[in-house]
């Protein structure tokens, strides 16, 4: 694993805001994710989760504020910061005309992974995610789940310090989803940091050390699942889903909207 500044948090959002022409996608986000932490970002569609992750990997520039990856500013020291990052986008677009193995070789080349390391790591990743048998197929023939797994392999080839995943479980079958969960937990156990966004609240509840709830570009709740349940005043039977509905006020609005649309 390539290491950043030891004392710095793995990922720090310092007063980060992002404005698209006519709307505020993210409003003044202050958040620190510690090394070895598995952090989950949840929120309704259009809440700003993907924008936040894209800013963290440098695909989007914050309108204001800074994002530090192990102490390196992703905008000013992009190359050094990106060396520490692995990223799996939602519905990852990959090079269709490369084979799975060639795609991983490309990722290894981009991150300048040594020959010994890639010889060890690429077969291990392919085996861990059950892609060995399909490594010589063109990516264009992969299912969505296989693409997602290949993107994860590509993100892990250089053994990144911080792994960012946007909706990582979408498209995965239950077995693959469980494999992913186990893999993420073992990554964190070995000192890696994982920052993921998800709609699957049960995944966040089971997996994440801490959860942030995003709504309309703002971080409206932050803490462990137990802390959030306590803050929301739920009894023992309450779940993260109840917290989510409570915090975002989604339940009442959604129900009213659904009834209204069906009756139109």
């Amino acid at each position, binding site marked *: 694993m390539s290491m950043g500044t030891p004392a710095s948090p793995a990922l720090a959002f310092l007063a980060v805001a992002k404005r698209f022409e006519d709307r505020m996608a993210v409003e003044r986000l202050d958040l620190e994710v510690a090394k070895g932490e598995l952090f989950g970002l949840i929120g309704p569609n259009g809440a700003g989760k993907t924008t936040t992750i894209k800013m963290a990997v440098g695909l989007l520039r914050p309108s204001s504020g800074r994002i530090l990856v192990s102490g390196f500013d992703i905008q000013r020291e992009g190359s050094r910061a990106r*060396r520490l990052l692995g990223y799996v986008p939602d519905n990852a677009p*990959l090079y269709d005309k*490369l084979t799975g*193995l*060639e795609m991983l070789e490309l990722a290894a*080349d*981009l991150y300048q992974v040594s020959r010994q390391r890639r010889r060890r790591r*690429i077969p291990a990743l392919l085996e861990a995610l059950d892609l060995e048998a399909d490594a010589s197929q*063109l990516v264009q*023939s992969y299912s969505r789940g296989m693409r997602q797994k290949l993107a994860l392999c590509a993100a892990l080839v250089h053994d990144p310090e911080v792994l960012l995943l946007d909706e990582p479980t979408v498209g995965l079958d239950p077995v693959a989803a469980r494999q992913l969960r186990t893999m993420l937990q073992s990554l964190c156990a070995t000192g890696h940091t994982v920052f993921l966004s998800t709609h699957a609240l049960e995944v966040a509840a089971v997996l994440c050390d801490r959860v942030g709830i995003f709504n309309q570009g703002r971080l409206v709740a932050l803490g462990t699942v137990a802390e959030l349940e306590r803050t929301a005043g739920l009894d023992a039977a309450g779940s993260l889903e109840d917290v989510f509905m409570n915090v975002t006020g989604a339940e009442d609005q959604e129900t009213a909207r659904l009834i209204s649309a069906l009756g139109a």
Partner: protein
Amino acid sequence: MTSYEFSTLAQLAGLLRAGARGYWNSCWRSGAGRRVATMVAPLVGILIWSGATPFAVTMWRADGLRRGDSLLGLVSTVMVVLVAFTLATSVSFALASIYFAKDVEWLLVTPIGPRLFLSYRLLAQFLLGAAIGTVVAGPAVLGLAIATGRWWIVPLVAVVVGSLLLPTMSMALLGVVAVVRLVPARLVKNVAGLLVAIVGFGLAAVDIAASVGSGSGVGVSTFAHAIRSPLWLPWSWAARSIVDGADGRLVPALLPAAALGAMAIVLTSITIAAAGPLLRDGWVRSQTTGRQRRRVRSSFLPLPVSLAVLRKDWRTLRRDPAQLIQLLLPIGIFAVYLLSPRAGGLGLGSFHDFPIWYGPLTTAAFAALFAASGLGLRAVGSEGRQFWCLTTSPVSTGALLLSKLLLPAIVAVSASLALMVSTELRVGTPAPAVLFSAAVLVVCVLGLSCLATGLGAVWPRLDWSDPRRSVGVWLAIFFMVLGAAYIAACVVGLTLALLITGGPTGLSSLLAFLVCLLVAGTTSWVALRAGHRRLLALES
């Protein structure tokens, strides 16, 4: 449940309206930069028209041009070239819009019929073609109207040319639908390139055959001369209608125009009716991806980033025959002309006052223009939605842009060099002249590749589902104009240096080379810097 009643015309109007809204939104609602470009483009267009129209008026007023056969010859040639160009481009366009556009799947499950779907695509293509044609040919037609004082020539030309090209497009569409219905599923995506290659090489072969038969030089004009006269050919009707119109004979002008209009309606209706039932099966085939296992044995050998990107680009290109043929076709056609028995190259004889390498060099540089357009212009755009793979890696933007330049530069330089040297050797060019012209060509083509890659980075189109659409049509036209101007600047610089220093001596050759180097270097620096700045500002 609600019941709906469908009207075909209303559906067609709805689809066209949605298409127009899409264009409008991409011009006006896709950021401030696009809005500015949308406002600036018409102003630039008006400026160009203001300059070109008086020039066209002067040309049309020239006695030689307006007299009898020379006008008919010119218009016939233009009509033949238009039909050939439309035929060749329509194959690719039809495949892209019917089988590989993002909205096809959705449209095919809505209650619009396949014939309506095809009509919509055909009309959209026709309207886009009409817009491009208006921009490009507008000043010439306007000039003709002003020169003759007959304003009705403008709608007459529009109707005649439209009626000639609409059935051409529909025939290409029918051909595409029929072939896709027949070929095996795994080959469907390769059919585009194959069809375009057949049409392209077919036209070149007919042109060369016509020139050999007529005994005059090679050229599209020869082909037009050979086949323009027969009255049964539609472009002959179009040419006669326009020429009669220009001469003020209204009725003789309207008769062929009416016949063309009727032919357009009948042929288009027949082709749409015939193609409709074949569409759905072909589409299903086109979506079936054959699983092709490749023998991949990794050496796990690390490569520098630039070579890794080059290897990736090369693999992507060679595994996509449609793109590969699209790239090779123009180079192949240049090769066919340069190496054909009678040719002596594309008008090589017209360079007889200059050194022997002059013609091959200029022709090869223009062949490189197509290679640069096919690869360099789309170097960044071809990344599409996969661009994140590169931009989230630690590779710097500058290194990334230079890596993307490698493949176009290598292909354009080697292809043009092979064309030029083989032609030079065939016409017995001395070795020092071959070496000098090779050095000039390499510099010129490298500059061209930088220009293409830089421009492609300034306006990358990363949101596509078919890689052939990774470059917008306007950018492609702009690059062809700019690239041709760049080659002209290199050649003019070279010529001036040779003329000023009194001929191809050692000193004048060195000076000519330095002039070319200066033009290429400046162009490369400006284009790559602009592309680099744009990529730095790009958010995806």
